[in-house]
């Protein structure tokens, strides 16, 4: 394993208003520069874990916590949210939870975090222009964020995190408001950031995308880790569906063809290789 950028040690958390622990004594590490996906049914603890990674637990959410989370060796519990925001950024599931609600325009919303960091005006303008273009919201930059469509607001939320240039990016179902093409656009941007060395931690329900993007997948069920492995091994395990998660169509096709003896090859987890496998099997 390369350099560890994120470490979770014996971590548990229970929200004040609930009886059940949302996270039950989990430990794992994430390697720098990797694409790490977290999957699991709703209520399995994915969002709680995201909140813990960026320090919203314990600094914002009240509850009972034990164990430790380290980002770049910095203990989250002992660091301020402002210090953490330079290292790790979270894009929320609901973009409306992320807006500052103090900015009059999209440009101000994007610049909000930079302002708090004391970046010069000139630099700020440059960065806002760059990110607005990247997120394809440059045409609405002078509009009020609340006048935008759901998809556009989600792009603003993503942009306001990207602009802070964190080395670790946590994405919690960050494209639910976008259409498939819009989502793909965003994931292309995320992938290019990952190729430049940014560590990505992503929660997503779209298993084809998870299989395609992830170096490693962690499966959560009832606040516990049930598996951490490479995508091929996660999805080839038949028991995985017991944890109420889907399996990519590609895996289902490959497994059916294998069961019926039409191919001897291992499962594929992406479109192109699956098509090749089917073509080969068709020839007999």
């Amino acid at each position: 394993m390369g350099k560890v950028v994120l470490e979770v040690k014996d971590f548990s958390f229970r929200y004040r208003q609930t009886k059940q622990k949302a996270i039950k004594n989990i430990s794992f590490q994430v390697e720098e520069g990797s694409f790490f996906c977290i999957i699991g049914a709703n209520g399995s603890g994915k969002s709680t874990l995201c909140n813990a990674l960026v320090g919203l637990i314990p600094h914002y959410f009240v509850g009972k916590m034990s164990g430790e989370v380290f980002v770049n060796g910095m203990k989250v519990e002992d660091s301020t949210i402002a210090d953490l925001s330079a290292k790790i950024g979270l894009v929320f599931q609901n973009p409306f939870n992320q807006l500052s609600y103090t900015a009059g325009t999209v440009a101000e919303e994007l610049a909000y975090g930079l302002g708090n960091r004391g970046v010069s005006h000139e630099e700020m303008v440059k960065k806002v222009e760059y990110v607005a273009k990247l997120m394809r919201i440059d045409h609405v930059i002078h509009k009020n964020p609340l006048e935008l469509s759901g998809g556009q607001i989600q792009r603003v939320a993503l942009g306001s995190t990207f602009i802070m240039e964190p080395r670790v990016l946590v994405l919690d179902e960050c494209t639910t408001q976008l259409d498939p093409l819009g989502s793909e656009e965003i994931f292309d941007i995320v992938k290019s950031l990952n190729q430049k060395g940014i560590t990505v931690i992503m929660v997503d329900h779209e298993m084809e995308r998870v299989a395609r993007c992830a170096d490693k997948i962690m499966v959560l069920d009832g606040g516990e880790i049930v598996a951490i492995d490479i995508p091929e091994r996660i999805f080839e395990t038949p028991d995985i569906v017991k944890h109420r998660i889907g399996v990519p169509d590609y895996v289902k096709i490959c497994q059916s063809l294998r069961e019926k003896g039409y191919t001897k090859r291992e499962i594929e987890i992406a479109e192109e290789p699956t098509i090749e496998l089917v073509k080969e099997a068709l020839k007999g």
Partner: protein
Amino acid sequence: MKIELRNMRYVYPTGDEALKGIDLLIEGIEPVAIIGQNGAGKTTLVKHFNGILRPTSGEVLINGENIQNCSTAQWSKEVGYIFQNPDDQLFLESVRKEFEFGPLQIGMSKEEIEERMKWVATLVGLSDKLDIHPFDLTSTEKKFCSIGAIIMMNPNAMIFDEPTCGQDVDGNLRLRKIINELKERGKLCITISHDMKFVVDNFKRVIVMWKGKVLLDEKAENVFSQVETLKKSFVSPPPITKVAQGAGLRKTVFTTEAFIKVFEEQRMV
């Protein structure tokens, strides 16, 4: 149930033309899916089905009657619209009150409300959460709460705007159950969705919107076999369908079983 649109246009107060002459007929109770890119006009279109929006020109007829003849409150007895964002719809202090509110407005009897409440709460999976504040529900439970509140009013048609967003496997199964049960009770469901797997699993008829127009309105198999036209509207078939097309299978398939069947037919020859 009959929803009919004749050369219907809608222009926003800003001057943007959102719908550019729509002719559409939805009749009966067979569930219909509406798909298309963000900004294609899907939500603007369905908001005309119960008068939340009024056409700039052309006609919208519900069971033969012009939409202009009644208020939105009156139409909502006939056609229920479930908002994309539950926070736009929910505003009371408990799930029970959300479920009672609409029916009380339209004068439903206490007995009927009680009876429907049991069925609806079970259907949407909130039986043990009736006395909880909607803000304490998870985002998917909120969605089911807003769905339940509309079903409670017993409209003859229901419009779901992006019900799958943020749903997991169980949530999608529950939505499927809701759509099936409503059909059994003779209700029409119209659903906007970006989730193509969900669309092909649950809908026989698919309408594709593109730049304020209806681009395709056909059986799902026919829609997803027109790859080039779909590309124009930036809609992509479900992954399994794309693999079948890529590998040269000659029929449009949506399930693993259908995939294998067509594969075997072609392999034999």
